[in-house]
């Protein structure tokens, strides 16, 4: 099934009477689900293989995402439409769309070192810029030497010392 169908499916669940809380619930379930399917190939193969029945797959999904009704209904519908494989392969697109609906911003932060004070300070600054509805992941990359690199959805901000020196070098 194409991503257009996934898009149609996304529009269908967001235009229905699904509440924001339920969507948030579905979103967090999807994040957990995609984390597992990305890291565990055996589970991914099991869930995308047609020889296993939907009930067995739902049982596995329940173990991954918990027994929230809204999430399980979502996955049941996905299995009924047989688009789980497409959902997994286009998970970035799907999550991005859901984040947009939920007004949530995903930020990947890269710093040379991290401690709680620095993390809190950065979080405060990020909230000041993009609001409080953030999904922030901190990554430590000693190669950047100092400063910060941000990936805000599709946009990159390079404020690292390495990046500045490379920029200067390119000039």
């Amino acid at each position, binding site marked *: 099934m194409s991503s257009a169908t996934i898009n149609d499916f996304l529009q269908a669940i967001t235009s229905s009477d699904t509440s924001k809380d339920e969507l948030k619930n579905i979103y967090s379930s999807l994040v957990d689900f995609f984390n597992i399917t990305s890291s565990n190939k055996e589970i991914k193969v099991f869930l995308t293989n047609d020889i296993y029945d939907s009930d067995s797959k739902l049982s596995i999904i329940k173990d991954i995402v918990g027994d929230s009704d809204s999430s399980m209904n979502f996955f049941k519908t996905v299995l009924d439409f047989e688009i789980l494989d497409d959902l997994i392969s286009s998970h970035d697109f799907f999550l991005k769309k859901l984040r947009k609906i939920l007004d949530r911003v995903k930020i990947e932060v890269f710093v040379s070192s991290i401690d709680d004070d620095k993390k809190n*300070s950065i979080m405060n600054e990020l909230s000041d810029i993009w609001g409080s509805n953030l999904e922030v992941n901190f990554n430590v990359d000693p190669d950047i*030497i*100092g400063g*910060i690199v941000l990936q805000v959805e599709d946009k990159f901000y390079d*404020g690292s*010392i390495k990046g500045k020196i490379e920029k200067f*070098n390119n000039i």
Partner: protein
Amino acid sequence: MAEEINLVGQLKFASQHLFNLFVFVGILYYFLKRPVTSFFQSRSLNIENSINSAKDIIESAQKLYDDSSSKVSQIDNEVTQIRDSSNKICDNKVAEINDNASSMVALIERDTKEIIKLETKKINNQIEDQILNKAVELALNDIKVSLTPQEDVKIIKNYLEEVKKDVISNN
């Protein structure tokens, strides 16, 4: 007396033989005059014919010689003309080849100078790049060693201020 008789006898003998000789000569003259005359006339005619035919042959040979001489002379002239013409063409070609070679040499010289100039510039740029990269590497190592956590936080805060301004101006 006896001797006189002997002399008369001898004269008689001699006159008889002389008479016989005249008779013999007369007979010979009578019988051989015509064939000998005819033979010599015929021989004279043959010789005359041979002389005439030899004259004709000489004349025709002379004519052939003259024709051949004329042709040889004509061929000599043509050969001279062809030689002159080929010398002229050869000279022109040599001049043309020399001109072309000179042009090519000038072109190659100009291109070579240009290539040397560009290669020199390229090598200079490469050397500059290498020096700059080395300087950047040293600077990064220096910064890595000397950068304190407080300075790092300050750099991050300053950059996030810039990002904030950027986001606000874009919105």
